[in-house]
């Protein structure tokens, strides 16, 4: 059997993720601030929700220059006002370019779906090759899982694909 290395998997993920309309950025912990700042400018983002990160990313993101930063604890009304959310994720599935979120205390489906722009920060260790691998790893032990493959989309009007019908129009993935 051919052993597939992490780098190959990430290449595959990138290919699939971009094919469904995701925006893939490879970066470093130091680079995050600049990457997100430039997204904020291009996407005209004023209000963001920032998920609680366990590491130094928390401190980096505090200094983003936007009109308002919302953090936990927060309300749905606040989330309804934001332009973008910045969150982590739990797994990346290479075969389909899917980003996997497992619900826990500091991870919310509402913050993934309500804003126009979703920015995800992930490290390379999150990569799985297939759903078989993903399900083996989670072993059914979760309250709920949400899987995102590209932006929200519809083709209900004459089969024209329109992104951002109910969920985000754009999904950025920053891979550290």
């Amino acid at each position, binding site marked *: 059997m051919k052993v597939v290395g992490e780098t190959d998997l990430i290449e595959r993920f990138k290919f699939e993720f971009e094919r469904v309309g995701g925006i893939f950025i490879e970066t470093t912990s130091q680079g995050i601030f600049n990457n997100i700042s430039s997204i904020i400018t291009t996407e005209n983002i004023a209000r963001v929700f920032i998920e609680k990160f366990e590491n130094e990313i928390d401190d980096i993101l505090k200094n983003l220059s936007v009109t308002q930063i919302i953090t936990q604890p927060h309300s749905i009304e606040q989330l309804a006002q934001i332009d973008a959310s910045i969150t982590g994720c739990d797994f990346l599935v290479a075969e389909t370019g899917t980003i996997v979120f497992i619900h826990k205390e500091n991870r919310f489906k*509402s913050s993934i779906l309500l804003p126009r722009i979703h920015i995800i920060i992930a490290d390379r260790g999150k990569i799985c090759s297939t759903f078989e691998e993903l399900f083996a790893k989670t072993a*059914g032990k979760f*309250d709920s899982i949400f899987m995102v493959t590209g932006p929200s989309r519809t083709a209900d009007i004459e089969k024209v694909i329109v992104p951002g*019908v109910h*969920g985000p129009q754009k999904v950025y993935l920053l891979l550290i």
Partner: protein
Amino acid sequence: MNYTPLKFKENALKALRNTNLRKNLTRAISHTLSKRVEVVSELPNWEDLRQRAHDIKKHTIENLSHYLELFEKRATENGIKVLRAKDASEAKNYVLQIARKINAKLCVKSKSMVTEEIGLREFLEENGIETVETDLGEFIVQLAGEMPSHITAPAMHKSRDEIGKLFSEKLGVEYTNEPEKLTSIAREFLRHKFLNADLGISGANFLIAETGSVVIVENEGNAGLSTTLPKIHIVITGIEKVIPRLADLTVFFKILGRSATAQRFTSYVSIINAPKKSKPDSPEEIYVILLDNGRTNLLKSEKLKQALYCIKCGACMLACPIYQRVGGHAYGSIYLGPIGSVLTPAQFGLDKATPLPFASSLCGKCYEICPVKIEIPHLLVWLRSQAVNSGFTSRFEKLIFKLWLIGMKNHKLYKFGSKFLRYFYKLGIKPKFKKWSSERAFPELAEKSFKEIWEKLKETEA
């Protein structure tokens, strides 16, 4: 809604004369089918996957009560409330009781064939609960006061101009026919509903027995929101949706999106095991209503059982030459196209939908495309025989077929018959099947029969 499967012929005729409808249908169908070929041919093991999906479904349906009990047990352990409804009215009453408990005023719904089947939206509205379809296609159909014309693309029969007019009429917005603008008008309108709804209702694509999970697959994010913002989430689904293990999903992940919308994978998948425990996300309570509503009729029949393998992808509809021409509304039923022509009579009684099994050319395209390999043509033929045995066909038709049978069994008679016909043809006397030939050319008889030509050929070669 008015269901009129008995009027298939009239409905179909009306649809065939509607050139606009045919244009809209052709555009949508050919687009999806050609994309589908692309995404299916990427998978060299497609036939394998179909077989595996078929086997999983078969195994589950053969052991359905075991897996339903297991699902019920696991889901209950996780904190989900599971209810069983034997028919539509029982299911609707469960929903109403739950809604009344929290004094619900506004309900957001994501796409679900089962709620369509039991007429849930109309029922809730009659009981004073505003109920909004949030899938864009369903929303369009709801605004227009129509029925969905396809199970995964409900507004396929409408053009952008028609939708633009509908929006400006019903929502009071300025007319536009740009899909992007129309979509953002709907987003705006529905976002408001999402934020104020107290009840969220969805269907399920799969139920996982071993983990007690509800799986919902979608593209727009409306199911995700319907199951996250309102305080209570009710899942209504048919008993046939259960599969044994989480790992089985990997097979269906590969086939479902490709078959339903010609996509490699859908944008969103929710796998829900338990109510949400951390604010501000909801729901605080989840109910799963397992609906029978005639499904056990299918279980009891060795023949029809396999129709329960259906994962409601809608591929057989797009592939069907009849559906391609008449569209979904002509069937006058909730489940449309080839599989609908099996499910409708099987679930609700053959006498209520007798024309449907006959609405097929038996070309086999539906079987060829079905990702779970349901032998739809066989089931249609079997239902036809049931219909004929209970006196569906006219005496004239029976007589014609009897004569045909005698002729086919007796070579000399057959030869004589065709000579006889040819003779009159030459004299210019032709049978007139007016109804049949009013909109299509009547086939001409060849001058010589195949046998005559064949014998000539043999002579010249010898």
